[in-house]
């Protein structure tokens, strides 16, 4: 019999019940909540007269709509200027208080983007099932956890039953072998993978990233990669547990200790696909071929290397694809065959659950150091992913580097990733963004998003247009 994939193992260890019709009941170890997708779930629970099954499996934080300026933050929930945002943040607060769910509220030093705080506090552990009413829950798969986004009805279902009705997915392995060139990051791998398999390439699959280039990534890099599995259509991204995973988890607030730690580690060491496991689909990329990536269109698969050109719809034979390219070029205000390095930027956004961790900020600061944001750039934002990331960055003096270069240094939250608060693009503006989605209007109605790595975003900020970050950095700096 063939061995098991990591996904198979996680599925089996959480299977409460397998029904004859192919559906199954899966036990959920960790449920993360935020203010946007939970209010209707709590309301449903109340209307049905139900209580949460296991309070201590839940952890909540407001992130999508919290203001990121320290002035607006200081006044607390009552001072959130936007009325609807305020109601939503207040509703989460009320629901957590009512049910006794632990919340890192707006003023908690541990508040941040839900996908940053889980791993940061050890609330995400290897081998867990982790769900959240947010598609980027795939991020937590970097720890060898089975993690994916759910809808609001499912949020209610998990609250009430600690289970999810699930169908088993197929197994997809994306192998990235070899060494990344200096200056090329996990974000570039993610974009290159999506560019290769497309935004629906992973639909129906649990996507495991494997290969020497993945093993070489830091935990931050692995989170960046798994975060974007959903942009390739895969609800689940996964990476095997290794010593790096275990070292990262050790000592975190909710991580097991003492004898339980030893027991847990012995269990976690099994969390990898068996050598003879069979995947339904395997895709291979060579790390050495990947260059810094820039998305040019309105879907994350519309991406090319920084030294390339915007595609020409005239050479596309598939009519649906040709139509999509034409539509995207029109929306983005770009011409066919235009060089990527000719795209000028109005705003820069460094942040989001993809790239707002300490390593991301260090990479951006290394480029910004001693340089100035170009005069043509209207705004350059750096939004740390959480309170602890912000504190760490300030301790390292990264905030000063950014501020001296002309960036704004903000309070943690989703911010301009989806523009539910005041941070947003104006129509027609181009933004170099370290977030994960470049959909029409994502960062503000009519806004034009280009997805890049933190170092590439910082390089675009100081040049005013896209540039291969490797041209800015000396060899030793990019290493």
């Amino acid at each position, binding site marked *: 019999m063939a061995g098991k994939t990591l996904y198979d193992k996680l599925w089996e260890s959480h299977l409460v019940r397998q029904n004859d019709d192919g559906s199954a009941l899966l036990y959920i170890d960790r449920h993360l909540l935020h203010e946007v997708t939970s209010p209707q779930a709590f309301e449903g629970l109340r209307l049905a007269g139900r209580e949460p099954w296991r309070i201590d*499996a839940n952890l909540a934080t407001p992130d999508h709509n919290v203001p990121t300026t320290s002035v607006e933050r200081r006044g607390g929930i009552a001072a959130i200027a936007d009325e609807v945002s305020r109601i939503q943040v207040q509703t989460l607060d009320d629901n957590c208080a009512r049910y006794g769910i632990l919340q890192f509220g707006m003023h908690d030093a541990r508040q941040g983007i839900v996908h940053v705080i889980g791993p940061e506090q050890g609330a995400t552990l290897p081998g867990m099932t982790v769900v959240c009413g947010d598609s980027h829950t795939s991020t937590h798969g970097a720890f060898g956890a089975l993690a994916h986004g759910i809808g609001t009805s499912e949020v209610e279902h998990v609250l009430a039953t600690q289970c999810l009705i699930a169908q088993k997915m197929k197994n997809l392995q994306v192998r990235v072998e070899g060494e990344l060139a200096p200056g090329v990051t996990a974000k570039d791998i993610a974009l290159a993978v999506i560019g290769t398999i497309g935004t629906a390439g992973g639909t129906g699959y649990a996507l495991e990233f494997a290969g020497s280039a993945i093993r070489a990534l830091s935990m931050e890099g692995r989170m960046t990669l798994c975060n974007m599995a959903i942009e390739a259509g895969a609800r689940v991204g996964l990476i095997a547990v290794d010593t790096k995973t275990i070292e990262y988890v050790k000592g975190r607030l909710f991580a097991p200790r003492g004898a339980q730690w030893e027991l847990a580690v012995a269990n976690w060491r099994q969390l990898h696909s068996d050598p003879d496991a069979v995947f339904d689909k395997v895709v291979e990329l060579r790390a050495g071929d990947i260059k810094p990536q820039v998305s040019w269109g309105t879907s994350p698969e519309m991406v090319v290397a920084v030294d390339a050109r915007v595609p020409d719809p005239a050479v596309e034979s598939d009519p649906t694809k040709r139509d999509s390219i034409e539509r995207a070029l029109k929306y983005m205000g770009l011409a066919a065959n235009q060089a990527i390095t000719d795209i000028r930027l109005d705003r820069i956004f460094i942040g989001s659950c993809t790239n707002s961790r300490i390593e991301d900020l260090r990479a951006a600061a290394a480029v910004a150091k001693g340089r100035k944001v170009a005069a043509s750039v209207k705004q350059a934002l750096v939004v740390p992913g959480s309170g602890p990331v912000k504190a760490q960055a300030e301790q390292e003096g990264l905030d000063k580097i950014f501020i001296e270069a002309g960036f704004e240094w903000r309070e943690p939250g989703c911010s301009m990733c989806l523009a539910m608060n005041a941070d947003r693009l104006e129509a027609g503006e181009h933004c170099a963004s370290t977030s994960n989605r470049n959909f029409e209007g994502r960062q503000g109605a009519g806004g034009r998003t280009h997805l890049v790595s933190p170092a590439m975003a910082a390089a675009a900020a100081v040049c005013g247009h896209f540039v291969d970050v490797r041209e800015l950095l000396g060899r030793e700096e990019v290493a």
Partner: protein
Amino acid sequence: MKAFVRHQGLVAPLDRANVDTDQIIPKQFLKSIQRTGFGPNLFDEWRYLDVGEPGRDNSKRPLNPDFVLNQARYQGASVLLARENFGCGSSREHAPWALEEYGFRVLIAPSYADIFYNNCFKNGLLPIVLSDGEVDELFRQAAASEGYRLTVDLAGQTVVRPDGGVYRFEVDAFRKHCLLEGLDEIGLTLAHGDQIRAFEARHRAAHPWLFGAGGSVTDERGMA
């Protein structure tokens, strides 16, 4: 959950691939804490010429005459025809809420994003997968004849064209059953409460760090 058995309705063709949930319901409308009120802002950025904000009177906003749902012949449509990877992106259930409230009961496309597909069933909306060729044919027929209607039968898993042509579609047995009966999934799961508790006990014995002082997140521990 709302039951779905059989439906006959007018077809509106949305000829775009990769329609994402940000497009279906833009984020400024997600701030509501209700399940309703999203219909008037379905496809907001395509449907109106100005920028929509929550709380505005949508009936006074300028419509985009080029957008398919604004055309006279598609008024009252309840079957949405779309291209591949419909509903990709954000997991927001507000997307099926908006589609349902607008009046759609059936979606037909060659493929959907997983989370969106799943969310539809929870809201009495039936997402049907047909082959590229079949979807192409429906686009052609819908464009060619005004008032083009399809009949969808969930029990028999068929889509019947006005010319009598029949397409069969697949749907997994559990989702079909729940939708046909309009079942409350939480109630169904809670009926297996003993099994969940038994699993929990085994799970706790095998992975004690996921419970109690380990993986449980509580205030005392959080404040430690």
